[in-house]
């Protein structure tokens, strides 16, 4: 436990980059990014020790503040450590692009951001938690706002700031309610908090709203697709890959220790919100053209899957079958881990593409595979993982989530629950297939085919540090996908041993066991057979006699133009039409020249797919708020006598009230 102070100290040292002299800013960047790498590696090592049971927990007390580590925390520290290492390595190269553009602030705050996330997870009482949470929120706001010359960035950053503080307020409220029923605000005491049911429901509602907001569940997600793309790419990677998981950590702490999942409705709410977020998130992701917005919406989707699994586990606990909830809760941890790896990887490659071409719009890209082969290979691994295909980490979490739902259907055979599981399977099925389509589209349009604009011409492969960061994540994804047993067993161990103490028994034999038999998922075996076959088939097409290179694609005798290939917008057209009752796409036609009535007019088509939640939920609320504020103006006439009058009235009321 004490060793974690070392890692935190290194992050602190890294933060000092803020005050290095300006002429040494490149040195400051390298030194403090190096410190971030070392500190993250330390966190990874120490947390893995804790998970393996070699360190044995511990607690540190500093007056009112305390730090505690247990299995649940250690699992999330592993996520922070691993992704922190990879992204910091990448940030070393990527951050150089900000030379002369406040690079010291970027790097210094980077360290503070990582440190605050470690601190949130280590917090042992409500004060430390809220303090670290708030530092994390503010520092991430500053990082989002880094390119503050751009108007879009500033508005995204302030939207993020407002939303995240609403979330903090909700969490504060939940802590306050829990604390009112406990002796102190230490987590150990909060666990024995005795609350009347109504207050308990309110506390749960507040906690769920707060953490759902931070993890971008619908309808509280509106800030996420704006804020994540606005930040510098390595910051986006950390925010999407790691910070969202910190919210899962906090929610788990509340559910397992403080509030409990014994009310059926809690699990139901969490599961339904998760499922809807998963489906709508990926639906919007398949419509976007901006690489980083696609990834941001896909984060909404994956957080949805994680919370759906969480809700499924909570329902099983509420139905008095806690030993069966292990599969679902393992899915939460495994999918959090896998999503952190793959989302960091893809945000890094989006950064690499931006670095190489200067654009994030996929409609201007294409054919990048030939220019940046390594980046393309790593991105392929990440895309496969986000489409949850075999041999990648993505499938492991998805598989466990589905098995968790299956447990719910099989073990509690009432028709109502079956209906819930049918609903879940329909939405998860749609989500899975849409995710595949979304990442085929992203990868195919960006890296394959021919270039769609001349921006691609200047593209080049990335420097070594950036490739190393991406390669590390890609390797981790493949390792996890091919041999999932170690990761899954570690994560299951967390649930059995930590304070959560879910009685696991032998429920998971090798993988999953319900009724009479277990179900086995052994990708290694399938992979070996597949690789042998692939090698054999590759040999059959390896000779020059078989592959004849041709100049251009046959196009009925004409030379095919680059604009004949499918665009990303065209690719998602059938889906847009199939789901138009949800998306409500709008098409705007703009006539640029009006000199001729019938011909020669220049037309511009704009396709708009507004986020329905912004239009239907936030706009009306905003409207009402402004209206209310307007009405309140009546009391503010600006005359001093009136204000003195108000004060007097207030005084009289207070005096009367005091006398009662």
């Amino acid at each position: 436990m004490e060793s974690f102070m070392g890692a935190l100290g290194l992050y602190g040292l890294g933060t000092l980059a803020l005050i290095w002299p300006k002429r040494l800013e490149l040195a400051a960047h390298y030194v403090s990014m190096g410190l971030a790498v070392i500190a993250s590696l330390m966190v990874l090592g120490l947390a893995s020790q804790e998970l393996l049971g070699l360190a044995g927990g511990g607690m540190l007390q500093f007056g009112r503040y305390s730090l505690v580590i247990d299995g649940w925390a250690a699992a999330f520290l592993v996520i922070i450590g691993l992704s922190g290492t990879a992204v910091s390595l990448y940030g070393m190269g990527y951050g150089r692009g900000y030379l002369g553009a406040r690079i010291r602030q970027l790097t210094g705050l980077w360290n503070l951001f990582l440190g605050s996330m470690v601190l949130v997870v280590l917090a042992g009482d409500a004060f430390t938690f809220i303090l670290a949470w708030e530092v994390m929120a503010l520092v991430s706001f500053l990082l989002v706002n880094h390119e503050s010359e751009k108007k879009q960035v500033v508005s995204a950053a302030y939207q993020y700031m407002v939303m995240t503080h609403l979330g903090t307020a909700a969490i504060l409220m939940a802590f306050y309610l829990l604390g009112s029923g406990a002796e102190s605000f230490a987590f150990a005491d909060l666990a024995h908090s005795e609350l009347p049911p109504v207050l308990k429901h309110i506390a749960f509602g507040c906690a769920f709203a707060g953490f759902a907001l931070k993890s971008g569940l619908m309808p509280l997600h509106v800030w996420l697709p704006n804020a994540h793309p606005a930040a510098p790419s390595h910051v986006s990677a950390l925010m999407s890959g790691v910070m969202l998981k910190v919210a899962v950590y906090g929610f788990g702490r509340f559910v397992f220790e403080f509030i409990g999942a014994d009310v059926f409705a809690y699990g139901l709410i969490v599961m339904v919100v998760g499922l809807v977020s998963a489906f709508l998130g990926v639906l919007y992701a398949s419509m976007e053209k901006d690489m980083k917005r696609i990834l941001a919406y896909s984060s909404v989707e994956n957080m949805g899957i994680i919370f759906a699994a969480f809700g499924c586990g909570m329902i099983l606990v509420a139905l008095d079958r806690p030993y069966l909830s292990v599969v679902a809760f393992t899915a939460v941890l495994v999918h959090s881990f896998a999503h952190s790896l793959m989302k960091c990887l893809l945000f890094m490659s989006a950064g690499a593409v931006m670095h190489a071409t200067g654009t994030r719009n996929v409609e201007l890209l294409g054919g990048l595979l030939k220019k940046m082969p390594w980046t393309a290979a790593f991105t392929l691994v990440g895309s496969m993982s986000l489409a949850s295909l075999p041999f990648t980490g993505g499938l492991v979490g998805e598989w466990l989530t589905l098995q968790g739902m299956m447990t719910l259907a099989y073990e509690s055979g009432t028709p109502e629950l079956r209906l819930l599981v049918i609903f879940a399977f329909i939405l998860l099925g749609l989500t899975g297939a849409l995710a595949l389509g979304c990442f085929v589209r992203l990868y195919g349009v960006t890296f394959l085919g021919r270039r769609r604009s001349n921006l691609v011409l200047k593209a080049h492969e990335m420097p070594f540090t950036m490739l190393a960061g991406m390669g590390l994540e890609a390797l981790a994804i493949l390792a996890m996908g091919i041999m999932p047993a170690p990761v899954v067993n570690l994560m299951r161990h967390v649930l059995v041993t930590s304070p959560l103490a879910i009685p696991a028994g032998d429920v998971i034999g090798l993988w999953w066991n319900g009724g009479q038999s277990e179900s086995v998922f052994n990708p290694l075996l399938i992979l070996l057979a597949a690789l042998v076959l692939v090698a054999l088939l590759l040999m059959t097409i390896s000779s020059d006699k078989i592959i004849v290179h041709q100049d251009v694609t046959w196009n009925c005798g004409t030379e095919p133009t680059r604009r004949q290939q499918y665009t990303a917008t065209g690719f998602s057209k059938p889906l847009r039409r199939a789901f138009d009752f949800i998306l409500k796409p709008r098409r705007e036609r703009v006539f640029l020249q009006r000199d001729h009535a019938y011909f020669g007019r220049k037309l511009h088509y704009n396709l708009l797919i507004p986020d329905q939640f912004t239009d239907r939920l936030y706009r009306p609320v905003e409207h009402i708020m402004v209206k209310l504020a307007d009405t309140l103006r009546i009391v503010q006439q600006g005359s001093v006598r009136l204000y003195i009058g108000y004060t007097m009235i207030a005084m009289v009321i207070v005096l009367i009230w005091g006398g009662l």
Partner: protein
Amino acid sequence: MAFSFYHGAVQALCLLICAPLIAGIVNKTKAFLQKRQGASIFQEYFDLWKWWRKPVFVTKYTSWVFLAAPIVYLVTSIMAAMMLPGLLQGNIRFGDAFVFVYVLALGRFFMTLGSLDSATAFGGMGGSREIYISVLVEPAVMLAVLLNASRYGSTMLSQMVIDYNAFYFTVPAVLGSVAFFLVMLAENSRLPVDNPDTHLELTMIHECMTLEYSGRLLSYIHLGSMLKMLSFFVLFGALYLPLPLPMVVKVLMTALLVGLVEILNNKMRLFKVRVYLAAAVIMLAVAIIAQ
């Protein structure tokens, strides 16, 4: 584990050899019902041999993904065939239903990437429609898995084999088998969702994706899709068809039935497929609740 793996490999090899024959039988059935002579039931073998001998033309726009896609597609079909239950004695212990679905998805992922790599309008169109159909099929596939898994308590394909005695023409069994038949037609690009016979019309989906492939790589794609179709026939017979018949008879019956359905239906408009697959979803949902 190793023993069941060996069984799986032998099974996949048998299915691989039989797959073109079954496709030939479907074609012959269609020809017979249309009062045509039709090609021999062995025609698919001759076609594969013809393509195998020819070189592959590759344009300069493509990358290694274009060459890898057909290979990955064929290999995933073989992997899926290895996981099927019930042909040979011996419990195939790595055949999980979700893995089966996602292994096939891996093949689809690469085929669609390959279609985008050729940088033509046809490829992109096929890929786009393939994704559209797969999105609509997926909920029905998931519910089909849920139907049998919630009945037998496992997602192992070998545990999900239908029990004739308990489900002999009961409501869930009949609804499940009809719905899976609809799903099977959509998954394998058959009429009324896709037309496997046309190569020039704008209506096609799967053939559109593979338009730029030639020679040996085309033979891999065709072999892969024929094997996938046979795998689905076997799955239909083993998991959903509530008749106590030997597997060979069931597969032949399914092939005849597919031929019959194909001549009785026209290709549906692309956006009508929604309704078609919603029917499958509703039938499966009723079956799951009714059991």
